[in-house]
């Protein structure tokens, strides 16, 4: 599904070049839910941006759905993102002038999908994330957890190959954090969508099937966690 091959990335600061990622190699299978764990400055966000095609690596290749996104032009990448990639942001990043439903529909607007189909899909997803009654409200009328649910619904509307979640619980209290993680796990289980969750919290990472740990730009560990876990009623149940 996703393959990162020998990716190195460095920034130029005047005459100085600072390497932030060193020869990273890993792959994620279809339907897998993995965590990219690392402390601040470890390079995890840079890795996420490279995988999402928001940046180009200095070296290496990134394949999503068997296509090398490194070689794509900006417009091709926009089209690719539209079809294959979903995003969940730490700060939700909803458009405040649009209603909840319109926010969820937005990626389909860029694909010229008809309003009736968009509406149908958006309402179904809002029901899936547990806020069907908030469809006509504006983001400012929702709590942080509810906004993140909207963001999750929005990331799923295009039925992408992979969803990148950048610190999805970073702005939430522990109770809401648990709810959101459960929603993600549930969706992964139900929809078989590949999730790559970037986090600095071990307890969040541990709920994923595999953890890739980054430190100072190097991939230091790859750990299998709860591949056999099953979900029931939104709660993780260990075998």
């Amino acid at each position, binding site marked *: 599904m996703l393959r990162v091959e020998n990716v190195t990335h460095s920034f130029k600061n005047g005459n100085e070049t600072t390497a932030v990622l060193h020869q990273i190699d890993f792959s994620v299978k279809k339907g897998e839910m993995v965590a990219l764990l690392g402390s601040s400055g470890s390079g995890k966000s840079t890795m996420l*941006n490279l995988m*999402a095609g*928001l*940046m180009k690596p200095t070296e290496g290749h990134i394949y999503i759905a068997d296509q090398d996104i490194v070689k794509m032009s*900006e*417009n091709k990448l*926009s*089209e690719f*993102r*539209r*079809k294959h*990639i979903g*995003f969940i*942001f730490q*700060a939700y*990043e909803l*458009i405040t*002038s*649009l209603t909840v439903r319109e926010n969820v529909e*937005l*990626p389909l*607007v*860029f*694909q*010229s999908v008809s*309003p009736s189909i968009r509406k149908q899909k958006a309402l179904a997803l809002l029901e899936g994330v547990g806020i069907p009654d908030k469809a006509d409200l504006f983001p400012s009328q929702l709590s942080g957890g509810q906004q993140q649910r909207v963001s999750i619904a*929005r990331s799923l509307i*295009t039925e992408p190959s992979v969803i990148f979640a950048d610190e999805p619980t970073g702005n939430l209290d522990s109770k809401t954090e648990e709810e959101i993680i459960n929603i993600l796990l549930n969706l992964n289980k139900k929809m078989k969508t590949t999730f790559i969750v970037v986090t600095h919290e071990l307890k969040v990472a541990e709920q994923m099937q595999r953890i890739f740990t980054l430190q100072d730009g190097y991939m230091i560990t790859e750990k299998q966690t709860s591949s056999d876990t099953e979900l029931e009623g939104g709660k993780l149940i260990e075998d």
Partner: protein
Amino acid sequence: MRISDISRLAWEQVKRRKVVTGLCMAGISIGCAAIIVALSIGDSAQSYTEREINRNFKMDEITVTPNSGIPSQGGGEGKEASASDAKLDPGRLTGQKLKIVQGLRHVTAAAPFQELGYIQMTTIDNKITDVQLIGTDLRLLTKYDHKFKQGGPSDSVGMAVLNYGATVGLIDVETRQRLFEQLSTDPYNNKIMEQYNSLSMLPSDMFKQQVQLQSYDPASQTGQSLISSPIQIVGILDSTGNPDMAMYDKKIYVSLETGERLVEQLKLMNGTAGQKDVYNSAIVKVDSTDNIVQVEKLIQKLTLNTSTNLYQKEAMASTFSMFKKAALGIGIFILIIASISIIVAMTMSTHQRRRQIGIMKVLGANMGQIRNMFITEAALLGMLGGLLGIGFSYLIVFGINKLIGSTGGMGMGEPLVITIPLMTLPIGIAFAVMTGVLSGIYPAISASRTNALTAIKRD
């Protein structure tokens, strides 16, 4: 991306960003109003002047006269007299030719206006004035923009219609003689001149009065006058043009039959006077000044001379064309200034919305889609500004009309009323939208080039 979605997203932004929207709309509306008002003033002033000139110069009329430029070479090889006459002088203005002219397309009236000469008109109470005697079809006078102030036309012999000018300045013989004598001895005496002028402008009630026409007998050695039989005034025409100028335009209209009788009685020798069914002048009324040239050419084919006052319109059109161009230039200049405000406001707005643009790009919006959204927003601002501009232009025109009304118009006939021609509204809106779109191009390109990653990054 669907047009409806682009428009909806643009509309949301326009609604949301009230200050930016207000600033942009204000700038554009002023420019748009300037264009609409300028075009309206130009148009209204042109049609007003055209109307006034038409009233005075009758631009929709063609004066037809015989074509005497083609000399006749004789003939008379035993043919009938009338046929040989026609061959002798094919340029004559005959009743037959007038009938052909009457049947031409765009001709609303064609009547002989037989100019029989300038003669003296005397009332029963011995007041006199000099008038131009014209033989015509009295029933057709109203077709030539004449309105009857009193009475109406009559077919009967011995009846006449006076124009308004012929009813003013009727002075009794003694007074007139006295004033002339005083003026000849003291030509710079303002008092006498004022007295003469005020008498010359004084109207008399001539309706249903009897008058006699008087001319000098050319055969008489003693300068004896010839006096016509009494003529009954059956109608008075309303004043056309400036009433102050009426004293210089005195006409008495009689039927062609009455005219023939007067020619005999007064021994008038003016042009074709006395020749049956042959006229020295006719006036052709055309439905629009636009068709004058076309009709004129057809009349000329009948070997007749024509003259019009159309050159007045052409001269006026070029003057107003210059005025309109200048006004349009001013409006466009204001719109250019307004467009700077849009560029500034939209560029500011682009910077404020960088994060939003970044999110949209991350969600799959491409550069073209972002660009289209901003251009649509700018076009929408232009259109709203244009609509506001239309409102402003009506207010401005209302104010100008009030001002013109309070100052008593332009001192000519009817007061000048500025109206906004409907055609100027789409022109104003088109300019406003165009300004919006052109001003939105730079901010739109700038927005579409926003780096998504930089835009969504939080410090």
